[in-house]
């Protein structure tokens, strides 16, 4: 499905936001590299996908009734063998038996790294704006973010990257790998285009965390909220 179709389908199902696997499909349609993942419907499929991607993996429950997955215990990380995948799958089915489930997303776990956020929202004055900054669960407490109007040019994206207070973290802070700013800027440009081109559908977007590690830059979670 192309992005427009994904948004239309979500609206037809009376949902105001895309499930993570749908949001990741949207990113993929923008040629954004995401960690290997697959939506599965039983534990055999889960194990098969995990083996295909290589351990460790992460299991996430996909349900329109669970938006804040971490808060609901709908994300289990660092599953390092078939047994753990199977147990987690069964545990999900038991704990969430009373809600409508779209499936379980099996995803190759991204190695630790610097957690960043790219998001968009709709400002009453400026329309779609993009935010870049330090991500993770503490994003709202740390508030180290920079805004630009969508869409941004690569030059503007690079400028924004250079403006966060913690920019030293991008330079390979205390033995961490250096973040590829060029690649990061491309990602900001693509997300800003996504928000701009689909402004009649999308009101908010959180790509958080985006993990930057020695292998590259990976959107690990994605949330797209429709108008």
């Amino acid at each position: 499905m192309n992005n427009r179709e994904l948004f239309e389908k979500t609206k037809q199902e009376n949902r105001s936001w895309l499930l993570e696997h749908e949001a990741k499909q949207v990113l993929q349609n923008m040629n954004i590299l995401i960690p290997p993942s697959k939506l599965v419907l039983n534990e055999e499929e889960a194990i098969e996908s995990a083996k295909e991607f290589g351990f460790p993996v992460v299991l996430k429950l996909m349900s329109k009734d669970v938006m804040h997955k971490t808060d609901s215990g709908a994300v289990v990380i660092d599953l390092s063998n078939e047994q753990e995948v199977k147990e987690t799958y069964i545990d999900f089915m038991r704990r969430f038996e009373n809600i409508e489930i779209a499936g379980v997303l099996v995803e190759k776990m991204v190695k630790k790294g610097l957690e960043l956020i790219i998001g968009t929202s709709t400002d009453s004055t400026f329309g779609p704006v993009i935010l870049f900054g330090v991500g993770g669960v503490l994003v709202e407490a740390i508030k180290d973010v920079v805004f630009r109007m969508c869409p941004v040019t690569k030059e503007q994206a690079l400028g924004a990257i250079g403006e966060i207070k913690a920019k030293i973290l991008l330079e390979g802070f205390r033995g961490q790998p250096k973040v590829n700013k060029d690649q990061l800027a491309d990602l900001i440009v693509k997300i800003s285009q996504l928000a701009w081109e689909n402004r009649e559908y999308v009101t908010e977007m959180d790509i958080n965390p985006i993990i930057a590690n020695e292998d590259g830059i990976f959107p690990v979670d994605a949330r797209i909220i429709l108008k």
Partner: protein
Amino acid sequence: MIIMTARLENFFNVKSFCVVGASTTPNKPGNVVAYNFINSFPGKTYLVNPRGGELYGKKLYPSILDVEDEIDAACIIVPAKYAPQALEQCGEKGIKNIIVTTGGFSEIGEEGIVLQNQMYEIMKKYNLNVIGPNCLGIYSPALGIDTMFLPDSKLKRPKSGPVSIFTQSGAFGAAFIDQLSGLGSGQWVSKFISYGNASDINETDSLEYIGEDSDTKMIIIYLEDFKDGRKFMEIAREISLKKPLMGIKANRTETGAKAGASHTAALSSNDAIVDDLLDEAGILRVITWDELADCVLAFGTQPLPLGDRVAIITDGGGAGVMASDMVSDCNLKLAEFSPDVQKKLDETFPIFYSTGNPIDLTGSATAEDYRDAFEAVYNDPNVDAIINLNIPCIPDLDINDYVKYTSEFAQRKKKPFLTALIGGEEGTKATNKLLAEDIPVFPSPGRAVRALGLLTDYTKYLRKHGVDPKSIHVED
């Protein structure tokens, strides 16, 4: 790019002007504006008053439609309820550019909104350009245009100069204009635009016009919100590479951020966004009113620094330390003097003066000590700007000589030279003498350094975008 004439050009570049509501009662708004035009406007002025008769030796036309000649622009100064009719007649007469200073429209609620909507209909029907309503309109001393309806006895007019201003708030505009008239020589203003309710002409039109106006060398803005924020930022990005653009975006606590479903929405308070966008567009944002006049003094009289290295000269340790703190707060650096300059300073001054940076001439300082210190650091290639601090109550300092030396160095204009005079009567007298020559003087070390910080921020912005700060000239 298609070069289009900014719509405001039609208001300033006029040969004939009509005052609708020219009152015969002294100091009434319609009387003041009529007086302004008759006294200053080099083109033809027409006055309209339904009662007819004469005012200041000019015929009062009972209606706009009675005027036979063509008219380029008009100012409507009648009570709000009569404004739509006056606007309609302007339209019929073929006047395309109209300023409506009267209040009592959308800003007062329901009843006013109805009136403003009537105005919109007329504007559309005749394809009019309208400034206002609820505004002071426009002022340009060089062009003899002045729709500010407060008499000169109350609101003093600054003379012609490099600064153009546009403001959403008329009261801010009146106060700031009045202030500029009393700042130094009072020669500051090129174009002033107060657009009030922005029913048509708004902040973006204003920026577009004065950005391209060759007489405008720097721009000061006062905004509370944007009518066309996206375009404003796009235009500002271009203009800020040609002339400094600075000002206040008030209404900072407006709560745009809501508990949205995303972190991004939760972080997206309108002011956080505005702050970043202003910064990116090269608009120097200041927060307090006094910083605006400080900007006019600093940008209007001194060149941009070519670097961030500051020399501080003081006669008081405390003032020097506070200035040094502000230097780092403003992302500036204390200069390290070059060896020969350091040697010169060490040889010139007694052992108990501090010849590092800040140079502390102590309470024993004389005006000549200041002069020698200025001379040494002004020519040091390691120094990009000078902060000259003086607490004038010390015994051996001849304040008149100090004023003379300060004035001389501030007028060299090779590097920014900013002064703070701190104290009571003696300081105030010296300040007034210096300001009369448009020498930038501030009442505290912090304000002097902060003004330098803004000059330097602009240099940095220009360099980041590949523009040579030497290409920007505000001061003559």
